[in-house]
């Protein structure tokens, strides 16, 4: 066995050359492409993480916006409720006012109707009373329709002021209405009594008027003296109406 130093030297050179070739054309490109892939993977991972962070930020922003919208919605709802409440109260108040007004009007109208009805009833009652009085008076003697009222008429004339009394009967006979045509005796009693209270002789002109029912009515230029049932009924009815 011998050792060839030339071969050793050549093989050493060969190994070094092969080392350079493989380092240059095999290991470096492959290592570079592995590194590039790792960089690309890291870049993709970073991009994915960035996208994830961006998505999280967008999600948080959307959530915050949704909360803001929800809050605004709640505020608007509360405002709308408050406004509706105010409107409801206003409508209720308006309705209450209108109701009160309508009620007052109805009440006034009812009062008017009741008053009119009462007046009508009073009128009917008056008419009934007049009718009843007329019928009752029909049972009394005819003299009662005038004779019982002469004294009252004379007292009423006597109660008149002096200036009025002094002017009565100056211009002519005193106009007198009676429930029926008086007899001559009754006419004489009336003239005598009036002359007595007036303090001078007066003439009278009597006109029958059945509307008076019973009694007399003196119609002077300055005064009217009523002493008959018609006037009494009218006065009583007015007093009743005033009481109601």
């Amino acid at each position, binding site marked *: 066995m011998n*050792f060839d130093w030339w*071969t050793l030297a050549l*093989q*050493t050179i*060969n190994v070094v050359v*092969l080392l350079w070739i*493989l380092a240059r054309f095999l290991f470096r490109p492959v290592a570079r492409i*592995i590194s590039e892939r790792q960089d690309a993977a890291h870049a993709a991972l970073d991009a994915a993480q960035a996208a994830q962070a961006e998505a999280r930020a967008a999600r948080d922003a959307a959530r915050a916006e949704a909360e803001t919208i929800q809050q605004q919605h709640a505020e608007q709802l509360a405002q709308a409720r408050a406004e509706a409440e105010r409107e409801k109260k206003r409508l209720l108040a308006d309705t209450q006012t209108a109701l009160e007004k309508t009620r007052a009007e109805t009440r006034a109208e009812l009062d008017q109707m009741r008053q009119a009805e009462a007046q009508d009833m009073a009128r009917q009652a008056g008419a009934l009373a007049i009718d009843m009085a007329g019928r009752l008076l029909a049972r009394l003697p005819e003299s009662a329709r005038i004779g019982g009222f002469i004294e009252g008429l004379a007292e009423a004339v006597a109660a008149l002021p002096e200036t009025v009394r002094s002017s009565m009967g100056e211009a002519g006979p005193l106009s007198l209405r009676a429930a029926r045509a008086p007899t001559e005796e009754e006419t004489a009693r009336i003239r005598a009594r009036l002359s007595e209270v007036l303090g001078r002789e007066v003439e009278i002109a009597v006109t029958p008027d059945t509307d008076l029912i019973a009694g007399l009515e003196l119609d002077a230029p300055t005064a009217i003296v009523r002493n008959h049932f018609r006037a009494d009924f009218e006065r009583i009815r007015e007093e009743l109406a005033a009481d109601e």
Partner: protein
Amino acid sequence: MDNPLSLAPLFHLGPVPITAPVVVTWGLIAVLSLFALVSTRKLSLRPGKTQTVLELFVSTIDAQVRETMNREPAPFRPLVGTIFLFVLVANWSSLIPGVEPPTAHLETDAALALVVFAATIGFGIATRGIKGYLATFAEPSWVMIPLNIVEQITRTFSLIVRLFGNIMSGVFVVGIILSLAGLFVPIPLMALDLLTGAVQAYIFAVLATVFIGAAVGDAPRPERPKKEDTVP
């Protein structure tokens, strides 16, 4: 019969005798270079089958270097990878009829071991400096200096002899059986040689990594951030 361990020059280039292992090595260099050029011509981020195998090969070497040396594998990747590829291809070249693997000759194994020896010293000095590298011979004590120097030499020789013995014996056995038994009888032994060749390539590359790793030492650990003094 000629001594199978002796080398007869095939031809001369001037005063330089060119032997068969050199010629076969040139052929292997050509094949590996062509393979490197062709396979790395269209590298892309979406790898094909060939690129996947290449990346797996490089990643495995990187993982082996990182695990053995506890350092970034980039500076050591070409040497370890070239040694593994060359030894593997050289060992398997015995499958080609009429070709004798270069690693079956002592000169080729010595050349490989010489490159590893030089790389060990080079990486050691580059990493530690001359003084630092020489100081490693005195570890753990100056008494160990002679032993460490002897170890440097003997382990290089062990690299040579291990690879030479395994490959040469396989070639011899196959040749003897072929001459005695017939054409197809040594096929199982040739298959065994394939396994032996792969294992020897792996052992040679791993031992080279271990030697270089011992020379460069462990990577300095990253310093922990100092805690700031706080005044209560």
